[in-house]
């Protein structure tokens, strides 16, 4: 069975600096995979290389066995990969509902149509309403997206990402900047909306990582130094070393040993 996402020997240079130094990663269909590592390890860059925001200098990125390295973002998206962003990236002057409807139009085949009337596209409306309910923003349906609270904007960000029905979902720090209760809700949301899909996420909150991920990869200085189950990663000596005596436990006070 081909992997949902497979990176082999992926490298990325900016000028003379090599940010990504030969990443190998294989993520199976239906797996929830977390990408962790210290700041500047290249997690977001890896996401950019996978999703088409930037082009790998060398190596290959395969989505369901098809090479996607260096393709345009919209081409990769149409092939069934969708991503969210670390810094909220929504259509700020459109209403919440319109944000979601924009995110479903291509996947429903309406493309660049200027001969359909949006109001008559019941499937688009229905799908957008479904996602709206999924992310729990029904009451904010007609509010301009820029007026939402931060946590609501993050939920909308996830909604836009999953609305098109992509099979492979990349979430870049979905809970960054959230309070504890907001984080718990976000984890529940992610669990719900990615059921049956392949999920790759970058996350700093170890509680979220260990709560959601089937497998974890640790990225340090542009290389994957370890991949494995949460249990294996927790006990990996190389990982402990990389985090310089830091901890990978959910609860920092416990992790002092």
């Amino acid at each position, binding site marked *: 069975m081909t992997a949902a996402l497979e990176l082999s020997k992926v490298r990325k240079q900016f000028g003379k600096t090599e940010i990504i130094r030969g990443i190998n990663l294989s993520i199976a269909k239906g797996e929830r995979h977390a990408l962790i590592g210290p700041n500047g390890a290249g997690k977001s860059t890896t996401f950019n290389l996978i*999703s088409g925001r930037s082009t790998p200098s060398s190596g290959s990125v395969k989505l369901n066995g098809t090479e996607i390295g260096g393709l*345009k*973002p*919209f081409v990769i*998206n*149409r092939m069934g990969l*969708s*991503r969210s*962003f670390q810094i909220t*990236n*929504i*259509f*700020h*002057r*459109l209403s919440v509902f*319109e944000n979601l*409807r*924009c*995110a479903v*139009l*291509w*996947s429903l085949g*309406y*493309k*660049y*149509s*200027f*001969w*359909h*009337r*949006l*109001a008559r*596209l019941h499937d*688009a*409306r229905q799908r957008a*309403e479904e996602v709206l*309910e999924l992310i729990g923003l*029904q009451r904010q349906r007609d509010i301009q997206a820029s007026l939402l609270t931060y946590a609501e904007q993050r939920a909308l960000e996830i909604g*836009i990402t999953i*609305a*098109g029905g992509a099979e492979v979902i990349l979430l870049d720090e979905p809970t960054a900047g959230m309070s504890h209760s907001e984080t718990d809700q976000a984890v529940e949301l992610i669990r719900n909306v990615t059921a049956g899909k392949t999920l790759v996420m970058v996350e700093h909150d170890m509680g979220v990582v260990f709560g959601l991920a089937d497998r974890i990869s640790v990225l340090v200085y542009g290389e994957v130094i370890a991949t494995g189950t949460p249990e294996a990663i927790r006990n990996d000596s190389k990982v402990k070393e990389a985090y310089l005596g830091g901890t990978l436990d959910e609860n920092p006070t416990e992790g002092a040993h």
Partner: protein
Amino acid sequence: MKTTMQQSYEPAAAQGRHAHRQLAHYAIWSFTALMMLVLPLCFSSRFAIALLSQMGIAIIFALSYNMLLGQSGMLSFGHAVYSGLGAFIAVHVLNGVGAGKVWLPVSLLPLVGGLGGALFGVLFGYVTTKKAGTTFAMITLGIGEMVYASSLMFPDFFGGEGGISTDRVVGHAVFGITYGPERQVYYLIAAWCLLSMIAMYAWTQTPLGRIANAVRDNPERAEFVGYDTQRVRYLVMILSAFFAGISGGLSVINFEIVSAENVGAVQSGGVLLATFIGGSGFFFGPVIGAVLYVLFAVALSSLTHAWLLYLGLFFVLIVMFVPGGVASLLMKQVPLIAARKLGRMLPSYAAALSAGLILLAALILSVELIYKLQIDSDNGTTMTLAGFGFDAASLKPWAVAAALWLAGALGWRTALPRVHRAWDDVQAEMAETAGGGV
């Protein structure tokens, strides 16, 4: 339980909203059509008909421009290229009809202009829409200059300095419509204006129209939901050029002449000004802008040489104090009307308006006095303004101007806080009732 309730409740609410909006749309369009029908009966002088005709043309042009600016976030400095080139193609076709070489009812000439505009949209748009933002703006400026320059290089097509003139009274009269009388031309323009308005509004309610908004707000994100933003910009540009071309075709019929000025920077700048003044954030904003612009450029220019100065000042004031344009000022009152609280605002509005009018009088008097002395003093320094005759070189009118400035400024300074206070009070009350309602 609560969620299931909402589930079954939501679509019904959406449908109700939809039906309600549909009805409002029909009412607004019918009202617009009625206005277009009745206005030339109320204002039936030759000048008024000419003014209304030019407004109709300007409305189409400004709305087509706002497909780029307001709907898609593309700031173009060369939109006259499409209306102008559409007009040139239309004028050649009309001359062909006149010479008996082509068969075409004059009523359909705007369509020829539209197709011509779209053709050049396909051509130039391919280059300009490669980039967005500032780069796009710069390329449109370049293309605009290029087309204007080439108008002197190809005299056969552009008619050189004199342009190309034509005669709209050609072919057989259909139902007695010859397009000789100006009134018939007006109704042709009105019909095309209404059709174009409806079509452009309908476009905003299509997938491409909505995705254009998305590209305006956040082009990067649009790429990550499957859309090629370059393609979106290109398609919008072609459609916009089509409607610009329709306005060009109508101007051929209206003026019976097309010259290099039709593709020039003054025209491109004018439509930008009109759209900004009206407000690019609302569909009907450019309609208001176009009407005001024509009032300035046609009506005011026949009254004073300083019309361009007034237009410039008006534009600066709008951009500085009402960046959303006249439309945004109007739309701010809608929630007040809905809550039946506009009456509360009216006294303070009236105070501000009277202070504003005094300031306007001061401005007009000052500007006209300066114009008289600086530019028109060869014909003597006596002048009349609003029925009063006086000598611009004497002290008296200047003293009046100074008094008006003083009175206006004082009035404005007392009126403005009143408006703000009344506004805050009304907003607080509305927030309270909204909070109590939930």
